[in-house]
């Protein structure tokens, strides 16, 4: 490829251009580097923190194995043992696995996609700091003997106030609730990033598989995590205010928790697995220097897995006595999910067969992972058969199964990925020789630990037991598993030694493309990622065009400069990646860090019932978010050339805005939370026939109509406000401000009227499960109205000082979407609460 061709920008580039670009992207020095929000920095912080939690949770596992190594042993007390396995599961799932794959996404996605950063850098900074601070505090609970001890699944009534009166359960519920917010923030960021910031020409069909995997990952988080938010919310409301969602004597049902938990919990497995599978689909082609065989099939498989995984949650409830016909359905769905996994496994094998295999540390990890994952998948098929599951459920057979799935499906690919991508972010590569030893040791340890556990379960040992009698003969198998755990520990230790010796993160001179990969993350250097942003014509652009990397580095491709003096990246269309506009990005700032710190403080202080200080912290967190929103939306500016005769406008509003997409995703999250609340309502109704229970008067029809009218008015007023936005530089924003303000008041009044209406009819949240279910919907609506009142306050202030007008209207449009959504949700809530029981009666 030496043919001269037309490049968008002529070489050499004018002097000073690169310096200006670097200046815009320069990271602050010293302690201020913590205020850097660029994805390369946040991504590194993020991955490192995840690795730290992995090691911490691994140490807990070693303590567990120490206790179980011998029968009737007392290395730890029963109570401590219960804390250990609860924390091991919780930390591995919530603080390691999900954040780790999200972290790799934050670190690598922009570079893979040809973007200079993620579209909402402050949001990912917030997500990271919330996770870091919250997670660290959560770990601390172990040292204060207040760690959660009801299992990572936290089933009520065991986790309810009666059986866990201490704060350990609150710590779990609020701690995890908080991590969920962080995960959702990251997911919104990733979805918008994948859909809108790909390099020109990188159609969806040319996107790296990891991008697809992270897109499915994000979508799954958007639908699955809200279910968990609802579950934790309901249980915390029950614990703190005695709203009896799960208490059978008062009309609640403990199985409601299991439905909500597993509606999250099963997709969770694939939320962890799919990104790792995406990483595998990136690494295998490089290892054999051949494109992925069956790219389309793999993308289809990723999406299908995401979809099917939402139909599997009852899989975990085969022993709860559900109707046979329901279990048969979920049994079939459980088998169905084996097919997309099978497609991916054989696509990897086919790719291995297509090229020329070159052994390397990542290759060792991947081959090991393949076998471990296949074994986990096969036992997964076994437990999808109801009678077999009823025999092995909650035994060590399941412990074996889930560790095979998660280790083969996520941990080993993740470790392989660290070896593979370290040269992209570090001055030195990790030692390939050490890496191979780590992989072999790890693979050996995993099989020595977990293969015997299948048998341990079949010969009768249940999970989560702190001891077992010698007479049952489980000692030998357990000792073997504990020895295996030591081998795993040795391998992880060796891995840490390798990291310490060779991992030297840098933004300038990375070790580079040592494995000869074909995707763009290997070109991107420095905090700004790309000197210029290329047009992508192939799935592996670097393989297709050997000169491309040099051209990018020389600044011959698009946007080799900074058009505004700010950080920028190119926004392209969703499907075919046509360039649409230049997005200016914020630079370093403390507001995300402060917001995260005080959000964490808010949740942790709530745990210890320090309500006043918690409220103050909450307000500070909101204030810092307002500070960052104040600076957002700089308004559209005239088009500038990016090279090749393309002129792009800057920071547009309207239909094509990436912020609109972000808002739509947020609305999906909100509606999924709302759907979770409605599910709780309907579920409790079906379980408890007395709906509403005796002694509750019908609600006033006039009150319902009044609330409905207010909601319609809120929507109408906000819509009207949009018609009166002044032209830039002419007039003031008084009229639209009035409309927005009145709209917020109407939204709040609708909620207040509805709650009054319910209270007037004699409904109390702690009186019955009915009251609790009704009130949680009504208060959810009130909370949304309150949040929007704050947002509206910000918009009014912006309008009054001229930061919102007929052209600079992006933040107004975001607010309008949310208000319309809230009005709609309020109307649905009214129908469900007031109309449904009347129809049924």
């Amino acid at each position, binding site marked *: 490829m030496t043919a001269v061709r037309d490049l968008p920008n002529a070489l050499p580039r004018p002097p000073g251009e690169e310096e200006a670009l670097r200046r815009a992207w320069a990271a602050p020095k010293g302690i201020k580097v913590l205020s850097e929000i660029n994805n390369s920095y946040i991504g590194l912080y993020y991955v490192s923190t995840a690795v730290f939690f992995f090691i911490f949770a691994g140490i807990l596992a070693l303590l567990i194995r120490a206790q179980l190594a011998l029968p009737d042993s007392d290395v730890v*007390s*029963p*109570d401590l043992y*219960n804390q250990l396995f609860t924390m091991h599961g919780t930390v591995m799932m919530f603080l390691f696995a999900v954040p780790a794959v999200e972290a790799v996404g934050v670190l690598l996605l922009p570079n893979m996609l040809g973007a200079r950063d993620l579209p909402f850098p402050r949001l990912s900074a917030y997500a990271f700091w919330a996770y870091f601070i919250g997670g660290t505090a959560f770990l601390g609970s172990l040292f204060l003997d207040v760690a959660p001890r009801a299992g990572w699944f936290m*089933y009520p*009534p*065991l986790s309810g106030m009666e*059986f866990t009166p201490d704060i350990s359960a609150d710590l779990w519920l609020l701690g995890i609730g908080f991590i969920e917010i962080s995960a959702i923030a990251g997911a919104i960021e990733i979805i918008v990033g994948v859909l809108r910031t790909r390099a020109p020409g990188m159609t969806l069909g040319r996107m790296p598989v990891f991008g697809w995997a992270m897109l499915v990952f994000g979508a799954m988080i958007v639908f699955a995590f809200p279910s968990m938010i609802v579950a934790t919310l309901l249980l915390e409301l029950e614990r703190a205010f005695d709203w009896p969602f799960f208490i059978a*004597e008062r009309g609640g049902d403990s*199985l409601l928790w299991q439905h909500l938990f597993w509606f999250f919990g099963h997709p969770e497995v694939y939320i962890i697995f799919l990104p790792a599978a995406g990483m595998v689909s990136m690494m295998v082609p490089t290892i054999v220097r051949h494109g992925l*065989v*069956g790219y389309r*099939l793999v993308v289809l498989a990723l999406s299908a897995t995401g979809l099917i995984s939402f139909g599997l949650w009852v899989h975990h409830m085969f*022993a*709860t*006595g559900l109707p*046979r016909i329901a279990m*048969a359905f979920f*049994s*079939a769905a459980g*088998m*169905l999910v084996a*097919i997309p996994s*099978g*497609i*991916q496994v*054989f*696509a990897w*094998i*086919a790719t*291995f*067969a*297509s090229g*020329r*295999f070159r052994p390397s540390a990542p290759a060792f990890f991947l081959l090991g992972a*393949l*076998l471990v994952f*296949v*074994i986990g998948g*096969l*036992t997964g*098929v*076994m437990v999808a058969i109801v*009678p*077999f599951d*009823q*025999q092995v*459920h909650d035994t060590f057979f399941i412990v074996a199964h889930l560790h095979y799935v998660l280790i083969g499906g996520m941990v080993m690919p993740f470790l392989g990925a660290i070896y593979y991508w370290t040269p992209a972010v570090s001055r030195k590569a990790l030692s390939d020789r050490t890496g191979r030893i780590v992989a072999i040791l790890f693979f050996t340890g995993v099989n020595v630990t977990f293969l015997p556990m299948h*048998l341990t379960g*079949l*010969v*009768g040992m*249940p*999970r*989560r037991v702190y*001891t*077992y009698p010698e*007479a*049952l003969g*489980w000692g030998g198998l357990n000792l073997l598993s504990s020895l295996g755990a030591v081998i795993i520990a040795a391998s992880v230790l060796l891995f840490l030694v390798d990291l310490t010796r060779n991992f030297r993160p840098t933004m300038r001179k990375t070790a580079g493309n040592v494995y000869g990969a074909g995707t763009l993350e290997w070109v991107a250097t420095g905090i700004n990622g790309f000197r210029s942003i290329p047009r992508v014509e192939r799935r592996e652009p670097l393989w297709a065009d050997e000169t491309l990397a040099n051209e990018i580095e020389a600044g011959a491709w698009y946007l080799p400069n900074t058009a505004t003096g700010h950080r920028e990246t190119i926004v392209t269309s969703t499907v075919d990646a046509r360039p649409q506009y230049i997005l200016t990005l914020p630079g370093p700032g403390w507001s995300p860090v402060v917001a995260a710190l005080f959000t964490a403080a808010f949740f942790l202080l709530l745990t210890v019932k320090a309500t006043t200080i918690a409220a103050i912290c909450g307000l500070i967190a909101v204030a810092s978010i307002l500070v960052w929103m104040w600076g957002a939306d700089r308004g559209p500016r005239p088009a500038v050339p990016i090279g090749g005769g393309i002129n792009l406008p800057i920071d547009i509003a309207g239909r094509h805005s990436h912020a609109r997409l972000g808002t739509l995703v947020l609305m999906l999250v909100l509606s999924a939370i709302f759907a979770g609340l409605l599910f709780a309502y309907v579920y409790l109704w079906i379980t408890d026939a007395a709906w509403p229970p005796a002694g509750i008067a019908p609600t006033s029809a006039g009150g319902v109509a009044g609330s409905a009218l207010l909601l319609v008015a809120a929507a109408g007023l906000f819509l009207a406000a949009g018609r009166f936005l002044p032209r830039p530089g002419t007039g003031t924003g008084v009229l639209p401000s009035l409309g927005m303000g009145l709209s917020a008041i109407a939204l709040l009044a609708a909620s207040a009227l509805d709650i009054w209406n319910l209270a007037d009819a004699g409904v109390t949240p702690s009186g019955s499960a009915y009251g609790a279910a009704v009130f949680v919907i009504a208060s959810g609506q009130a909370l949304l109205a309150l949040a929007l009142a704050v947002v509206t306050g910000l918009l009014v202030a912006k309008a009054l000082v001229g930061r919102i007008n007929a052209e600079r209207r992006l933040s107004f449009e975001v607010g309008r979407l949310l208000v319309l959504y809230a009005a709609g949700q309020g109307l649905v809530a009214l129908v469900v609460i007031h109309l449904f029981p009347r129809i049924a009666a």
Partner: protein
Amino acid sequence: MTRVRGLPAGLALALAGCTPIQSALDPAGSNAGMVFDLGVAMTIGATLVCVLVVVLAWRAVRRSRAEGAWLASPRMVIALGAVLPAVVLTALLAYGFVLDRQLAAEEDRAALTVRVTGEQWWWRVAYLAPDGSPAFETANEIRLPVGQPVRFELESADVIHSFWVPALGGKIDLIPGRTNTVTLLAEREGIYRGQCAEFCGTQHALMAFMARAETPEDFGAWFAAEGGDARQPETEEEVAGHGAFVAAGCGACHAVRGTAAAGTIGPDLTHVGSRLTIAAGTLPNHAGTLAAWVTDAQAIKPGARMPSFDELDGPTLRSIAVYLASLR
């Protein structure tokens, strides 16, 4: 069938060095037997698939470019990744459904009903009369007649537990506010251990029970005797023990039918002497362990509802233990 079952089970147990008292690999009930056959079939199938994957992965990595292009084609991905699993899994699903129907059919034949209530951390057991009322109550031990399906009604007094006797069949949860049922049929005589399988708090690990499958004649005799009142104390020590039992206030929590002790909080002790274990499968049952349990329950099973009566003097403690052991 027995031979098919015997070989892999024996092999596995030899490897594990286990006493098969709580093992799903040594089935003694129809439910466990059917699941065992299913498990063997699935294990063979899974092993074959696993070997296939390893062989293909090995070939893929080792082969030279010239040979076996079929392995590198998307058609292979569809054939082995989608078509093969679809066929195998459909067959397996059908097998699973048939099995489930067979298990369901057994439910209709059950003549005897036992109500088991899970409590932190022991099992309340009530045998029901034909009219559904409790005939008598016992704890932590279940006897059942060989060859006759027994229906278990499962309830919980506090948190979620799970009822599981691996040698007889699969587990079902005991959930507050709900009544679950499972039907088990013991095919041969023997003593099988069961254990709570759903994490239920501090002492989840020590919440076991014994299931004793007996000939219908032996079972009938036991059933008739078990419904009766407690044996009266006879020896001097037993009489003293009964007095001490009453004086220590044991009757506040425990019932001994035919005496003033009528507590319902803890296990019924009317025929405690005839049980194989005490403290929900934690200790073997004899005067020595009974004494240890009375005086030191909190050390043996920390967190259990049973307090340690460590203020009792030696002779009193011994007499209580002897009295309890005499309640056969």
